[in-house]
């Protein structure tokens, strides 16, 4: 069963996907064909050339600025502080004869060799540990081709029309519907930003996952300053917990989770108190990706090896989910927190896990299903368009589910070598209740030559769903999906039919279900 073959073919080259209306994606060349409704998020362009990345690799230039006439003690102390035991040993091993006795240098170099041997053994168990921290962020980031992408992270504010964009030059910009000023956040420690997230139930706090710490910015929304000082940022760091590749606020805004691929512990931060509780589980070699379910009851934590965990947040116990093929690359939760969709590296499918709890009294993790079900097969399919054959399909880089649970956007990794198989965004229609169903919607296309890098849904778009996509050419565009929510009719006191629009149209168009729980 190939899900993508049921999709309508992608639009013609040169056209971009503008919006979804009447159940189909509309392509066009400009945005003029749609009437404006309320605030339109700005479509921004950050050309790759205008941003200067940090060219210095870690600690390469440091030696040039250090005074080498320091005493051995000073240098040793600095080496110990900067890079721990191995740095100290390295420093002593490289000393000259007159400073240290010969036996000490030899002993140190032997110890160092032994240490390296042991760590290489450790590295062979967990290959990701041999990566440099920048490569590690690129490897585990949700952004496709993170190291060369102009936009490195993006975050919508959960309650208001405001978003933050992290750029290649390690700055963060904040765009707000209500004010013309777009503050730029810069901090000494803000390097290699892997993720951004606004604190829920708060107007101002923005958590940033950085190279060797977490930053929590407090950006006063009423301030007119365009460059908030670095005093507005709280620095949260824990030894051994870097680089931070993923962060997740609890939906009630009280806790912040952070994960690093080199640390087997996941940190639970009390941000106001700047204290953390490590939740240590051996196995997996680290934590790469975190996702908190919207109802706050569970957290997905994936590791660099073929294993992921689902934590329940009452007593913080976890269940282990070993995968067959590879590590869990990404995952997203349904709005009610009962379903988890995830994808595994090396497989072109989307899996689903169902968590059924007794209503009201969640019994922790007792109610979860025994095995994950495949809900979509994303293997390669070719479409013949006016420009010739286009092949679509591949592994999943990241997924996003809109807050109403009606649209699921999946970013498919293309093949960098094959030009006719670009990265693509496939959008599914989904339904959660009474049974889980998946229907095809279409592909979202950008400007010609631009590949999608990152996607996120607007958390409270009034007329349906709004998908924000960051493209490889530095463009950030917003694709609205206009539909009448099926869940919306429940709130209506009037006796409207239970499934007003989507279902009737689906039948009309003769669309076929990709997945339904009934059949499985």
């Amino acid at each position, binding site marked *: 069963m190939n899900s993508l073959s049921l999709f309508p073919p992608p639009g013609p080259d040169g056209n971009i996907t503008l919006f979804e209306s009447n159940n189909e994606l509309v392509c066009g060349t400009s945005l003029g064909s749609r009437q404006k409704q309320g605030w339109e998020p700005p479509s921004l362009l950050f050309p790759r050339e205008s941003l200067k990345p940090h060219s210095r690799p870690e600690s390469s230039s440091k030696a040039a600025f250090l005074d080498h006439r320091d005493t051995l003690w000073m240098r040793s102390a600095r080496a110990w502080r900067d890079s721990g035991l191995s740095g100290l040993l390295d420093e002593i091993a490289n000393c000259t004869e007159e400073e240290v006795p010969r036996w000490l240098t030899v002993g140190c170099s032997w110890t160092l060799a032994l240490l390296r041997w042991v760590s290489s053994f450790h590295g062979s168990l967990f290959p990701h540990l041999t990566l440099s921290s920048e490569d590690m962020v690129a490897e585990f980031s949700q952004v496709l081709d993170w190291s060369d992408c102009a936009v490195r992270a993006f975050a919508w504010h959960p309650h208001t029309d405001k978003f933050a964009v992290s750029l290649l030059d390690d700055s963060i910009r904040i765009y707000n519907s209500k004010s013309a000023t777009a503050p730029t956040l810069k901090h000494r420690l803000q390097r290699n930003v892997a993720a951004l997230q606004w604190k829920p139930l708060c107007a101002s706090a923005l958590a940033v996952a950085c190279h060797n710490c977490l930053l929590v910015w407090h950006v006063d929304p009423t301030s007119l300053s365009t460059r908030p000082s670095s005093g507005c940022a709280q620095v949260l760091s824990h030894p051994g917990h870097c680089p931070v590749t993923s962060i997740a606020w609890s939906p009630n805004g009280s806790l912040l989770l952070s994960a690093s691929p080199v640390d087997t512990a996941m940190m639970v931060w009390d941000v106001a108190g700047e204290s953390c*509780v490590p939740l*240590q589980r051996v196995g997996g070699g680290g934590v790469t990706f975190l996702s908190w379910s919207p109802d706050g009851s569970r957290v997905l934590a994936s590791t660099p090896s073929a294993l992921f965990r689902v934590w329940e947040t009452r007593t913080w116990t976890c269940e282990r989910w070993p995968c067959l093929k590879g590590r869990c690359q990404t995952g997203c939760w349904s709005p009610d927190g009962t379903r988890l969709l995830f994808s595994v590296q090396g497989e072109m499918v989307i899996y689903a896990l169902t968590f059924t709890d007794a209503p009201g009294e969640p019994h922790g993790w007792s109610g979860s299903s025994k095995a994950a079900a495949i809900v979509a097969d994303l293997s390669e399919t070719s479409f013949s368009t006016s420009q010739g054959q286009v092949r679509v399909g591949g592994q999943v880089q990241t997924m996003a589910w809109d807050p109403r649970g009606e649209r699921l956007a999946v970013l498919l990794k293309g093949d960098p070598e094959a030009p006719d198989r670009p990265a693509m965004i496939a959008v599914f229609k989904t339904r959660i209740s009474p049974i889980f169903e998946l229907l095809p919607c279409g592909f979202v296309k950008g400007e010609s030559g631009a590949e999608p890098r990152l996607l996120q849904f607007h958390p409270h778009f009034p007329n349906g769903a709004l998908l924000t996509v960051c493209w490889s050419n530095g463009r950030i565009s917003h694709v609205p999906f206009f539909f009448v929510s099926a869940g919306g009719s429940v709130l209506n006191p009037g006796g409207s039919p239970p499934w007003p629009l989507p279902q009737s149209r689906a039948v009309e168009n003769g669309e076929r279900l990709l997945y339904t729980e009934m059949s499985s």
Partner: protein
Amino acid sequence: MFNSEQNHWFVRKVIFWRAAASVAWSVLLLPVTTALFAFLSRFSLFHPIQWISESFSLLYGSYVIFSLVLLCGVVLVVGVFNLEYYTVVPSVPCTKIALLGKVLHPQQSVHSLVHSMMGIMVTWCAATMIGGRYWILAAPCSEEEGVTGQKMCLNEYYLFFLLAGAFMGYSYSLLGVVRNMNYVSFQTIQQCKYLRFKGMLPQVVRYSAVQSLYSVRNYCLFYFFFGKDSDCLLLYTKHSSLHRLDTVSGLLDFRLLYHLWLSGTFLLLTWHITLLLFRIFITEAYSFPVQSSFSEDVSQCLPKVLSEKQPLILKFLALQDLFLLSQQSLSRRMEVFSLSQPGGHPHNWNAICKECLSLLSDLSQRLVEYQEVVASNGRARPLSSHSDQRSTSSETLGMSTLIISSLMSLQILSIDIGLKTPSSSPFSSSSVNRFVGNVDPSSPWYGSVQSPHVMRRGPKLWTASTGRLKFAHVKNFLARRVLIMYLFNKLPEASSQALFADSQAHIWALEGLSNLVAASYKEDRFGVVQTMLPSILSTMLLLQEAVDKHFKLPHASSKPVRSTCCLEDSTFKTLRFALRAALKTAMYRITVTFGEHLHSVQMSAEHRKRLQQFMEYKE
């Protein structure tokens, strides 16, 4: 104060049992640590087989068994002291003299004395287990052969060891006061006890080892300077000691230092584990029934328990339970929103809401009073109420209220001085030593500039409060002396910490209340919450205003130095930030849930304006 508390049903039924369970677990862990100690004490790099076989034979020896029994007793006593001295609201000394008062308080002296004695016992056990030269107090003077009737000499190693135990016991007790080790904080997440213990254990081991290292260093210095007096004291002068240990060469005995450090680590580790287990057990969430159909159980239900003032631990656990139920349990929330069966009154909700609101408005009032004190530069009127308020909490903490209240006036006197002193930098907050370094007592600035200021201020203060002018003159005279100034100077930030010392309760009240209000949007079938919504909102907005004002005061928004270790719980130092964050979150939770409906809630224009800020996400 404790006797009245001990008769409380909750202390009898829950706290005692929890404490007992924690002591039982520490006793069960004792053989493990003892075995480890025995292994490591015999450590020799070059004779590994001999080392292991010796250690095993040692473990079965009667001395170890006897030591274990003794150590169990020690752990029991430590457990009892933990139970007697713990507090959920730390006492934050605002001046050096208050800290001194805390250290010299009789209750604390008992603590120190008993811990010194127990330290001696633990090191005696350690010395017995190590054996060899630490075996006995007196040894034959010449080591060649045991000739009968030989003159006995003092085995200074033995004495050195026992005194080290006393020293470590005392420093444990002293550091406990300075670092508020008796303060029990509640975890932000609810982990099960075993996992919490497992997570903390490596840190506790490391902390004990490091602390022991510092203790050994301090003790060696101490012994080096005062060692000669020690044997004078013990009337051993007529016997010459075998090895002199109060010399540099005598102290630089690596094996001795290793044994000393190991014994110190062993001592601190057993005590710290006992403390850790006690904290873990005591702070475990307790689920109170929301309502009961039996009238005899009504006093144990959440609404009743919440309103009780004593014991504090009960109030805290009840608020924690309220917070948890508001977040996690639908069925218990339904009980809160339910109506009483005959009559149809929402008694549960009313009681809970009233208690939470009174807690919050108490805090608002306390903050406003403090601001008045600061604004009026310590004039006397708000002083009395302020000191009363603080003393209620300090009484429960076993602090010397007498000293504090008599010193309170001088503290106020020095408020404006303290605020204007350039040396009171925000970074010198908690660490005593750093503060010592910052103040320059020899600076002429104190005498010349400050004294007219004090002279002008002083009489006014004292005529208003007590009217005893003479006494005021004495105080003025004293205030000009450098040492007195140093002792009575306000520690920056400390008063702010003291104000928010019990704010964990307020945070839970805020979270619980706002969660209940948010849940009521869907779950409250009878509309019982809606009737209270105006007063909830206005209380929160008033508190918001007071907190905002407080953070504009100097030192209030400066961050304290983060403590490095788990056991030195410094949660209370950042509670004001946590409270501020929780307050905003609570407000947003209500505005997000109710949205536009809040416009129809009755409130003053000023509050409506403030609320509008929240609804537009501009706070």
